[in-house]
Every structure is written in structure tokens, then in C-alpha cells.
């Protein structure tokens, strides 16, 4: 299980490959890539600035992955979240889950994303030529996490 918070870009081939190349029990890897969207639709360059709570982020992500492992067959997983200044089309987050079968891989991957969105202490600020503002949390993210039920929601 790999958990990382970093400013650098990550390599999808290397990260996903590490989950299955040495383990012939892996039949399925579901992965998710979150990217910076161009909120300004081309009206000047905008930057996304990501702040986090060092220490707690890693702890929260490890707990979310552990909760996923208790629900599904997770043979390996990687969660990598970038912080700092990011431009449109740059990857922000990678969640990848390796399992024997696809149902478990998909469910665990989506579960981890839903709780990362609502439980891991990261904050986004949009910086545009017109000024900067903190991104508001979305109720739809809370609903996405709540649908999994259980004590970890």
C-alpha cells in the first residue's frame, strides 16, 4: 500500500505497474485520475493551489485505504495526492486499487475517492488573473461518501 503527498508529478505506468507486475494474483486494477479543470474556459490562465495538513493527510488516507480493505479484496493500492501550484490538465490525484476481480477493484477505488474528497485534509484555492478564492466544499461529495453507509461515513 502506497500513500504519498507530493509536489512532483507522478508516473501512471510506474504507479499502476507496481500494483500488478510482481503479483500474478491481480486480475484487475481500477484507477482514478483527478485533474485540474480550466474553470475559466480559456479566459486567462488559472492556477490551482493545493494546501494540506502534513501528517494528518497521510494518516487519513491510510485509514481510508484500511477501511476499503476491510470491505473488499484489495491486493494492493496506491494513493498519490499532489500539493502546491497546479495548472489546468495537470493530474492532482491518483487512486489505484489492485484486486483479483473487477467488482472489488472498482468499488474500493470509488470508495477511497469518495472519502478522500470528504475526509482527507486538502484544500484548493483557485488563482486567476481576477483574484483568488478558496474552492467551496460540495454537498454532492458528502452524499457520495454517505451512500457507502457504515461507521466510516
Amino acid at each position, binding site marked *: 500500500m502506497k500513500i504519498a503527498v507530493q509536489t512532483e508529478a507522478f508516473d501512471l505506468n510506474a504507479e499502476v505497474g507496481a500494483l500488478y507486475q510482481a503479483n500474478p494474483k491481480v486480475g484487475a486494477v481500477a484507477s482514478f485520475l*483527478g485533474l485540474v479543470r480550466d474553470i475559466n474556459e480559456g479566459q486567462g490562465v488559472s492556477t490551482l493551489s493545493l494546501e494540506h*495538513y502534513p501528517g494528518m493527510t497521510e494518516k*487519513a488516507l491510510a485509514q481510508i485505504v484500511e477501511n476499503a480493505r476491510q470491505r473488499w479484496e484489495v491486493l494492493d493500492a496506491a494513493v498519490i*495526492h499532489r500539493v502546491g501550484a497546479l495548472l489546468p490538465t495537470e493530474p492532482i490525484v491518483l487512486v489505484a486499487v489492485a484486486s483479483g476481480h473487477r467488482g472489488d477493484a472498482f468499488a474500493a477505488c470509488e470508495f477511497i*475517492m469518495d472519502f478522500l*474528497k470528504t*475526509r482527507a485534509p486538502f*484544500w484548493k484555492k483557485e488563482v486567476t488573473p481576477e483574484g483568488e478564492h*478558496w474552492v467551496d*466544499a460540495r454537498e454532492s461529495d458528502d452524499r457520495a461518501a454517505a451512500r457507502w453507509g457504515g461507521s466510516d461515513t
Partner: protein
Amino acid sequence: MKVRLLYFARLREVFATGQETPDIPENVTTLADLLDWLRQRGGVWAEELAAGRAYRVAINQDLVERDALLHESDEVAIFPPVTGG
């Protein structure tokens, strides 16, 4: 009792500080008490930490509810709802 207070993101900016290590009165024993005590500072503290506002609190890096007990040297972080991913 001394606790370490951390503020993040918008709250860090509004409070104009990322951390402090105040000496809190003896009658402040729960997180709810601590929030009351901070609100007594008035201004942005009273405003941002008011009952209806959306913010989260972690003690020693775990999200907690308002009835959580405080202990010497606890790390108490107050921050807006998270928006990562």
C-alpha cells in the same frame, strides 16, 4: 493546560495565523469549551466559529465531534470542509 492550535486554508488566512500554543483556562475541558473560549476573542473568531458555520476539527489528526475531551499538549486543528481530490 497548553494545547497546540493549527488553522488551515481559508481559516488560516482569516485568523492571520497558522498556529498558536495558548494557555487555556482550567474550565476548558472539551472541544466545545475550547471553541467557546476562542469565540470570546470576538471579531473573526466569533464570526468564523459561530454555531452555524461549516468547519471541521481534528484532535491529534483525527476528526472529532464537539464533545471530545482535551488533554495537555493535544494538537487541535480547525479547518474548513476539505476540498481535495
